[in-house]
């Protein structure tokens, strides 16, 4: 315990005795949902087939479904959920605004513009590159798009230390409008084949998961997550406002740059792999704060667990809702996330007035 305290930094009041229990519980739920993701699907599989699939001794069609379709899907879900939740958590912390979400403030849309440009200009861009690098082009383009938007939103929201809800949402509206216009022009100039790739991708889905894709996005997200997980104290200090955080010894500009780059990396990486998936980055940190309190050293891991749980549950939902067809996963996350967002907005406005 002392070691953990020293690592998480800052003054640590004695742990609420229930905190370790909550993490065990969250982890338990995640394991159950993950097993469900492997076991439950449109195709009914026997326990032996599932075990054979997991142990990579796939021989029957059933076990191939587990090892080739469901397992990479689960892995991608873990990566995407973690990335979105951590980004949402860091953005909310740095902007001191509970409505910050990679989707709402336009980071995901920026990543989309990047990724779609890569799809449309694929032939031009890829001609110059060796074939083995192609799998990285989409994530890099998405990262660039997300980076531009994050930088813009951060510079707009800089005034006065804290961001107002109004500024943030207006910036998001503006960014989304610009990005949608760009997506519109990309759609206009694309040919039929590109259009197919784009429409599938725009809907958001874990369905395209294969081990190459999982490896690439895992590598990107692992880097971002490693640094984001260690930002607990910095995010805590930001809750004092930028000036007081600076007085307390924090290089606030550096922290903001770090969060902007890491979020762009994480969101870009997973958006390239699974398309834009909304609301996970908004909901997961909130639920995490409700159960572990406001300390970011605890909120970050709890949010990552919540994010993966929510995303895998949404995926389970869309896979099993109307088989053999499969609605886009964004539909499920928006159906929970939309009302949640509205509730949050209304309660915040009631509490703080419109300009809060």
């Amino acid at each position: 315990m002392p070691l953990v305290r020293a690592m998480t930094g800052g003054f640590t009041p004695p742990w609420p005795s229930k905190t370790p229990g909550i993490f065990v519980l969250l982890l338990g739920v995640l394991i159950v949902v993950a097993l469900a993701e492997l076991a439950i699907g449109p195709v009914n599989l026997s326990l032996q087939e599932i075990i054979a699939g997991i142990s990579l001794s796939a021989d029957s069609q059933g076990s191939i479904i587990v090892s080739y379709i469901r397992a990479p899907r689960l892995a991608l879900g873990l990566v995407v959920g973690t990335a979105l939740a951590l980004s949402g958590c860091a953005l909310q912390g740095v902007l001191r605004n509970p409505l910050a979400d990679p989707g709402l403030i336009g980071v995901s849309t920026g990543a989309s513009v990047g990724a779609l440009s890569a799809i449309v200009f694929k032939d031009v861009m890829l001609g110059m590159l060796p074939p083995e690098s192609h799998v990285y082009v989409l994530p890099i383009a998405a990262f660039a798009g997300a980076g531009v938007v994050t930088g813009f939103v951060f510079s707009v929201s800089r005034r006065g230390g804290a961001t107002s809800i109004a500024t943030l949402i207006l910036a998001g509206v503006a960014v989304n409008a610009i990005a949608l216009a760009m997506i519109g022009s990309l759609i206009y100039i694309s040919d039929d084949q590109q259009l197919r790739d784009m429409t599938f991708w725009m809907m958001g889905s874990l369905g395209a998961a294969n081990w190459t894709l999982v490896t690439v996005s895992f590598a990107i997200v692992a880097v971002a997550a490693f640094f984001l997980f260690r930002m607990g104290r910095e995010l805590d200090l930001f809750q004092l406002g930028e000036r007081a955080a600076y007085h307390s010894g924090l290089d606030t500009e550096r922290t903001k740059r770090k969060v902007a780059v890491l979020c762009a990396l994480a969101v870009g990486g997973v958006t390239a792999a699974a398309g834009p998936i909304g609301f996970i980055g908004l909901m997961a940190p909130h639920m995490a704060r409700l159960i572990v309190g406001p300390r970011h050293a605890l909120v970050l891991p709890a949010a990552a667990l919540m994010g993966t749980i929510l995303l895998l549950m949404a995926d389970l939902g869309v896979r099993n809702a109307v088989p053999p067809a499969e609605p886009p996963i964004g539909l499920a996350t928006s159906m929970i996330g939309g009302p949640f967002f509205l509730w949050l907005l209304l309660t915040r406005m009631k509490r703080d007035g419109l300009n809060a």
Partner: protein
Amino acid sequence: MYPLRRLSVFMVCLVVGAAAAHADTRPLRVVSAGGDLTEIVYALGAGDRLVGVDSTSRHPGETQKKAQIGYVRRVSAEGVLSLKPDLVLGANDLGPPPAVEQLRATGVRVAIAPEGDSPDGVLDKILFVGRHLGLDDEARRLAGEIREEMTRAIETAAKSSRGRKVIFVLSVGDSGVLVGGENTAADAIIRLAGGENAARGFEGYKPMSRESILQAQPEVVLMMKNRQGGHRSTDRILDRPEFSMTPAVASGSLVTMDGLLLLGFGPRTPKAVAELSSAINR
């Protein structure tokens, strides 16, 4: 008139040769993703072998009773697998690519149809479906019939052609209309029916500006009947100045046809040519 002879004897031999290899394996659980392919399966009398169809498969009416796998470009690998198919017949645009890859990886036979927005294409697709269902003889017979019908329909259309300029309107939005340019199924069927595509100078389905539409002076507006059979979107067309001032609307030449019949290039294509021809050459 149309160079049907391009479908050479050589081609038929090739198809027959390939079919022989599959003759012993007659798939009994077939998923068809593509409205035209589903029609062909039924036309070959193998409709009862279908266990699932995509959302573009709306003809014949029995397709409504089959399991629905969603839009052809957005199928889910596991969803399709849950139907335990031994063959997936996919239109050229079956996707997304990862789902097709996943299906193949689990050992399911996935057959992608040749592209075919042309009379030859229809015949290719019939032979393709027949080959994969192990119904080569039936397919050859059907292809022969369709070829004759097609030739007749195209000849009749050519005879009665008055060189009318036809514009195909895919959809009407608040900001503009989406029309069928060159290299589209709409362009192909209009020309087969003895018309002339008024939307020139661009490929694919694109928004066309008001002035270009006025300048094109379409004499017939062609649209798809919407699923409920209503005509709401045709009413909206009449209100728009770029259409109300064209010869098409002035003479009341507004044609609506079933989308799959018109653009599917399935076995009903001769019928589509005949219907469209009589509608635009009135």
